[in-house]
């Protein structure tokens, strides 16, 4: 028997596998057993009603997809009336992703969500910050610091902060989140990208640019998890192109304590269950009695620091 339990910023999970926000809803209960998941992470809740972006909202790319959904939201009342009662029927803890256009907006949402049935907050600070010319909070350490500090003061719940990969130094942003009270960082949201139809000269997404996800982004986000793991002591939830148990193990070796599965669920709705089964199988096969032993177990033998520094400079 492998012990699959992990502790993420003070929240105990039966296993380290959970959906990524925006790629999961009650509809998946028609295909998989929700009680097997490590946690629920639901689509981002906003205070206000939001219609979302124009269509097309999705485009296929090599080894991945672009999306520009635009966080359509039925608002906070819908969450309390419909979403929360639905998830209370199941065992896994409910992590509520939230978003707001201002730090105050984030804080008031987090406070309001301090109710029975909400196990943790995932602050989606990859959204545009109206106080910073629409740049995402998570693009800079100082905007991250201010919104996380406000959130920390506003809630006693475990606070996970979802970072954007669209920043020059994600490790600095992770440090800012840690220094201001985040219990964990989720690395990362989608990579800003675009695609053009050469037959029509039109962008393939209605809002021109969108987020790239899927296997194509895995090496990039894995690198960012590795960089964050070297920078902070708080837990890291890896999220980017994971489709198999081996992918999840790779993220844990780089420093993640848990993983989120998103785009893979669109291709195989049973992907979450498959990853849980495969990481257990991996631990059995390799003789690990606890999955948490994989976190940060990356082997760097044979490469001394001087070599690494040289490679870093050459690569940048």
């Amino acid at each position: 028997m492998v012990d699959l339990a992990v502790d993420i910023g003070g929240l105990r999970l039966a296993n380290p596998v959970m959906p990524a926000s925006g790629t999961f809803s009650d509809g998946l209960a028609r295909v998989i057993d929700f009680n097997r998941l490590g946690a629920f992470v639901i689509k981002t809740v906003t205070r206000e009603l939001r219609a979302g972006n124009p269509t097309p909202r999705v485009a296929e790319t090599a080894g991945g997809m672009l999306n520009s959904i635009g966080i359509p939201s039925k608002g906070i009342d819908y969450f309390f009336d419909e979403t929360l009662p639905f998830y209370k029927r199941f065992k896994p803890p409910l992590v509520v992703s939230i978003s707001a256009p201002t730090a105050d907006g984030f804080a008031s949402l987090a406070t309001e969500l301090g109710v029975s049935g909400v196990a943790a907050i995932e602050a989606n600070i990859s959204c545009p910050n109206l106080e910073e010319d629409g740049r995402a909070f998570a693009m800079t350490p100082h905007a991250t610091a201010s919104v996380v500090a406000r959130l920390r003061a506003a809630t006693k719940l475990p606070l996970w902060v979802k970072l954007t990969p669209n920043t020059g130094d994600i490790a600095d942003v992770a440090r800012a989140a840690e220094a201001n009270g985040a219990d964990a960082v989720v690395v990362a949201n989608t990579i800003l990208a675009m695609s053009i139809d050469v037959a029509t000269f039109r962008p393939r997404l209605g809002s021109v640019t969108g987020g790239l996800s899927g296997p194509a982004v895995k090496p990039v986000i894995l690198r960012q998890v590795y960089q964050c793991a070297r920078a902070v002591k708080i837990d890291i939830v890896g999220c980017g192109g994971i489709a198999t148990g081996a992918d999840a193990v790779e993220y844990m070796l780089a420093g993640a304590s848990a993983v989120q599965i998103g785009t893979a669920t669109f291709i195989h709705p049973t992907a979450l269950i498959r990853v849980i089964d495969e990481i257990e199988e991996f631990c059995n096969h390799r003789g690990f009695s606890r999955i948490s032993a994989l976190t940060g177990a990356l082997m760097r033998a044979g490469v001394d620091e001087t070599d690494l520094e040289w490679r870093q400079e050459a690569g940048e």
Partner: protein
Amino acid sequence: MMDSLYPVREGFSVAEQSAVVIANTAVNPEYRHLVVTAEPPATAALAGQFFHLLCPSSPDGNPFLRRPMSVYAVDAMRGRVEFLYKLMGAGTRGLAMLEPGDRLNMLGPLGKGFALDPAWKHIIVLGRGVGLATLAPLALMAERASVRVTAILSARRPDLVMSVDLFRARGAEVIVVNDADHSSEVGNVERLLRDLVARGRADAFFTCGSNRLLLLLQRLGNEHGIPGQVALEQQMACALGMCFCCVRDFHAPNGGVEHRRVCWEGPVFGLQEPLSW
């Protein structure tokens, strides 16, 4: 494809399953007919529902996302599901490569299908393009409910009309219209419809595949108080209501406009609900 990784799980109404291709043949220069094996819950698919197909790679590309495909026919006794698909892009060109004996990973059945009101005695089915496939299972559904069907099937050319024999075999009256002789023009279709309405053959309208035919039926439906249903299409990613990629505009109950997910609230909607596109 690692099919053993995705076994059908007991107790779930939607499943990923590895179907075996029985036939995959051209029906005209644009469309192909795919017949695959299926087991429950796939064989519980209703008219208007769809499957999400993992299309194989071909020289035209490697489809990353699944492709939604409406059900053309289901035979639960023999364990078969059939599709009619148009050769369009990388997905359908990949499907065209499938040979009998090959495997096809399909997810389903998905979405909300057509429904017949027991009070209806005569319905009108008006289809064009992909609608000729999507509307086809209504023929059997109506026959079983003892509902008479008049099917108006529209295409660019007579050789591109499909499902004529299928509707006739189920006792439907079939009227074929096409662009080549201008019989498919809205004015002529409207004349045919008004005649059927006048003869009491139109307790409900069913349509799919054409925006202008939808508009026509919405207008006639309003004028005569005739209800109906329309099956819509939209690009999809998840097909389970999770990603909100496949939204379209609908009249909201409060008078405004709202988004609904074609995969989840649909693909079949009330005739007057969608805005035209």
